[in-house]
């Protein structure tokens, strides 16, 4: 069964606004990763957060992890039109990542 599930499935905001995407998972994890997929392209790794971390930053990205709730969130601050893409969380163990269905983000200029 699917491990990660993103919420919302789709999000539309204006440029400059913040975008928040959530991910829930079912089993214990060591780490959780976020990926971005631009239309017609492969996935690009954004950030990895370990299970003993609660928050991690990378540029305009902020990821939080709550292992007690089995959830993570990705915040993109001051969004740009170029952030328009699908965002996936991924968890897994021993050899394979399991991806959620992603959140499709549209940032309107």
């Amino acid at each position, binding site marked *: 069964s699917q491990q990660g599930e993103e919420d919302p499935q789709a999000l539309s905001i204006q440029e400059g606004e913040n975008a928040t995407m959530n991910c829930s998972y079912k089993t214990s994890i060591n780490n959780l990763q976020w990926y971005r997929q631009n239309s017609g392209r492969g996935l690009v790794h954004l950030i990895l957060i370990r299970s003993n971390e609660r928050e991690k930053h990378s540029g305009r990205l902020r990821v939080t992890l709550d292992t007690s709730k089995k959830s993570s969130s990705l915040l993109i601050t001051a969004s740009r039109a170029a952030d328009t893409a699908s965002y996936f969380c991924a*968890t897994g163990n021993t*050899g394979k990542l399991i991806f959620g269905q992603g959140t499709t983000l549209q940032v309107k200029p």
Partner: protein
Amino acid sequence: DTAVSQTPKYLVTQMGNDKSIKCEQNLGHDTMYWYKQDSKKFLKIMFSYNNKELIINETVPNRFSPKSPDKAHLNLHINSLELGDSAVYFCASSQVFGQANSYEQYFGPGTRLTVT
């Protein structure tokens, strides 16, 4: 300087045909993967190879046969194509096999397969 490359980018073929997709990575990674992404963007792992050895086979029909001639290449051959095989297939690689969620994966640009 492409990290993970796939060919072809688009593949249109008829039911019953046999086709292959090729993947190469120049990152020096030990582990390579094939994923299938359906029309709802659900991405599912199909196979994983570590140093040319098949590690993961996720209940994929045996019409799909991966082949890894060396650790930089992982090809996917599909026999007797069916309509349901239409999807985007992604190749990926990572540095180390084992705790997969501990290492980022690098994805190719995808191959859009359309079976008519």
